[in-house]
């Protein structure tokens, strides 16, 4: 079975792994990890210039050299106003209408303020942005984000940076079933390649992660591991996994069992 390529706001992608660029031990390791991950989209941010240096220029030069598409985020924004202004500044600096929209509502879990998220998404869509909302697995919020004009949804797996995997597998499965034709990306909380494979097996279209690669003992090797796991999970989804059963079922044929199969000793 041939897979159809992933299409996000009209952009066709081969890779189903979107990667963050933060927390790497060095720019060289970041660059090598992005290559090893075979990723085509990386997330970036905007922060205050500190000390009149040119650190921003050199980081942007590195990213441009990788030949990948950038997805600027509004990480850390806690209000609609902050998120909208950050998105507008990012559009000018990075030259893209794509934005990963975060409106953070709670410090311990960094969970989205979904009310602010829906409001900011509507403002940005009307302003011409292609919004990738970082949201929860809540179906009603998802409906409202789509109503606001989002064409992609990015529910969390677990709190940002926690590495705990898919906290609400049932909820994510329900979201997938409810919106069969909307590109869904699990964003945040992925810790290991098996978590990413699980998301893909559920039928998610892609995975976005950062810390799990950047903070690995060997980020480049881990990037490769994630690329393979995501490919394996996607293949498994397309292949159609078996349904789990409560009781054992022999896999070896029972017909023709030697000794009549009657001995229970």
């Amino acid at each position, binding site marked *: 079975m041939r897979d159809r390529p992933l299409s996000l706001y009209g952009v066709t992608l081969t890779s189903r792994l979107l990667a*963050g660029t933060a927390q790497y031990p060095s720019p060289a390791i970041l660059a090598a990890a992005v290559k090893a991950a075979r990723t085509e989209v990386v997330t970036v941010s905007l922060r205050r210039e500190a000390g*009149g240096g040119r650190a921003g220029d050199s980081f942007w030069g590195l990213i441009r050299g990788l030949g990948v598409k950038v997805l600027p985020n509004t990480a850390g924004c806690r209000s609609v106003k902050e998120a909208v202004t950050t998105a507008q500044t990012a559009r000018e*600096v990075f030259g893209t209408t794509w934005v990963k929209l975060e409106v953070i509502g709670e410090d311990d879990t960094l969970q989205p303020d979904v009310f602010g998220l829906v409001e900011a998404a509507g403002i940005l869509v009307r302003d011409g942005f292609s919004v990738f909302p970082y949201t929860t697995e809540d179906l009603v919020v998802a409906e409202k984000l789509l109503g606001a004009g989002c064409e992609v949804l990015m529910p969390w797996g677990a709190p940002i940076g926690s590495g705990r995997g898919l906290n609400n597998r049932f909820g994510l499965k329900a979201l997938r079933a409810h919106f069969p034709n909307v590109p869904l990306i699990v964003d945040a909380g992925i810790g290991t390649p098996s978590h990413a494979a699980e998301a893909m097996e559920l039928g998610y279209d892609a995975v976005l992660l950062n810390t799990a690669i950047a903070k690995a003992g060997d980020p480049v090797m881990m990037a490769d591991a994630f690329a393979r796991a995501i490919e394996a999970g996607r293949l498994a989804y397309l292949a159609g996994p078996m349904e789990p059963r409560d009781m054992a079922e022999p896999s070896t044929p029972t017909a023709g069992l030697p000794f009549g199969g009657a001995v229970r000793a």
Partner: protein
Amino acid sequence: MQIRVNGKALEVAATTLAALLNELDYEDAMVATALNQNFIRKADRMTTPLKDGDAVEVLVPKQGG
């Protein structure tokens, strides 16, 4: 005139946003600007006046997740 730039109080001579970037040696850097929480396009910096107490943000590309 005293304004805040990236959260720090500064005494500046510039009376426009463009002049401020020049004064702070940002003019050729890749930066985006906001004034009092509103985005100001690069093309509008020359015609954006500054007044005492304004809060300016000068933002640059950074790593992100």
